C-alpha cells in the first residue's frame, strides 16, 4: 500500500478536527454543569454554617418550626444548641457540638473550592485547545480553497 493511499486528505483531517472540537466543547459544557452543582452545594453548606452561628448565639430555648416535609412544620423548642448529629456516610450519624459541625462544614467547603479550581483550570485548558483547533481548521479550510 503506498503512502499516498494511507495519508488522510484535507477533508478527512478537517472532519477529524471538527469532531475533536465538538468533543472538547461537550467536555467544557459537562465541566460547567459540575461547577454549577458544586456552587449549589457550597451555598447550601454556607447556609447551614450561618444557621449554626445564629443558633449558637441566639438559639438556646428558642421556639422554632421543625420541617416534617411536604412544606409542613411542627412547633418545637431548641433544648440544647450544642447537641447535634452529623452524617458520616453509609447511613450513620454521630453526635457533635456546633463547633465540630462548623469545622466539618468548613473542611467540606474547602475541598469543594479546591475541586472547583481544578475544574476551572481544566476548562481553561480545554478552551485553549478549542481555540488552537479552530485556528488549524481555518488554515486547513484556507488551504482547501487555495
Amino acid at each position, binding site marked *: 500500500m503506498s503512502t499516498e493511499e494511507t495519508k488522510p486528505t484535507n477533508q478527512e483531517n478537517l472532519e477529524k478536527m471538527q469532531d475533536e472540537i465538538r468533543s472538547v466543547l461537550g467536555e467544557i459544557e459537562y465541566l460547567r454543569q459540575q461547577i454549577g452543582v458544586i456552587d449549589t452545594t457550597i451555598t447550601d453548606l454556607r447556609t447551614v454554617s450561618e444557621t449554626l452561628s445564629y443558633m449558637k448565639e441566639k438559639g438556646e430555648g428558642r421556639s422554632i418550626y421543625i420541617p416534617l*416535609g411536604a412544606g409542613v412544620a411542627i412547633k418545637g423548642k431548641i433544648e440544647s444548641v450544642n447537641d447535634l*448529629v452529623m452524617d*458520616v*456516610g*453509609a*447511613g*450513620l*450519624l*454521630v*453526635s*457533635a457540638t456546633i463547633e465540630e459541625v462548623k469545622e466539618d462544614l468548613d473542611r467540606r467547603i474547602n475541598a469543594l473550592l479546591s475541586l472547583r479550581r481544578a475544574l476551572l483550570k481544566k476548562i481553561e485548558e480545554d478552551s485553549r485547545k478549542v481555540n488552537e483547533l479552530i485556528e488549524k481548521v481555518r488554515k486547513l479550510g484556507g488551504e482547501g480553497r487555495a
Partner: protein
Amino acid sequence: MSTTDLLKTLELRWKLEELRRLKSSISSTLREIELAREYLSKHADGRRIYRKLGDLIVEITREEAEEYLENAELGLKAQLSTLEEEERKLSSG
C-alpha cells in the same frame, strides 16, 4: 451485519453499560462505608452513634455500628462479585 445482529450487539452493549454503572455505584457505597468506618475508629470515642432507618434516627452502640457496616460491606461485595461474573459472561458471550 444483519439488523438482528446489530440489535443484539446494541442490547449487549446497553446491558454492559448498565452493569458497569451498577458496579460503579456499589464501589462508591463501599468507599463510603470505608470512610464511615475510618471516622468511627478515629473520631467516635465518647460520641453517641445513630443509624438512619428511613426518616428515623435511632441511637445504636459502637458495636452495632461496626456490625452494621460489616454486614453492609459483605452484602455489597457479594453483589459486586455477582455483577463481575455476569460482566465476564456477557463480554465473552
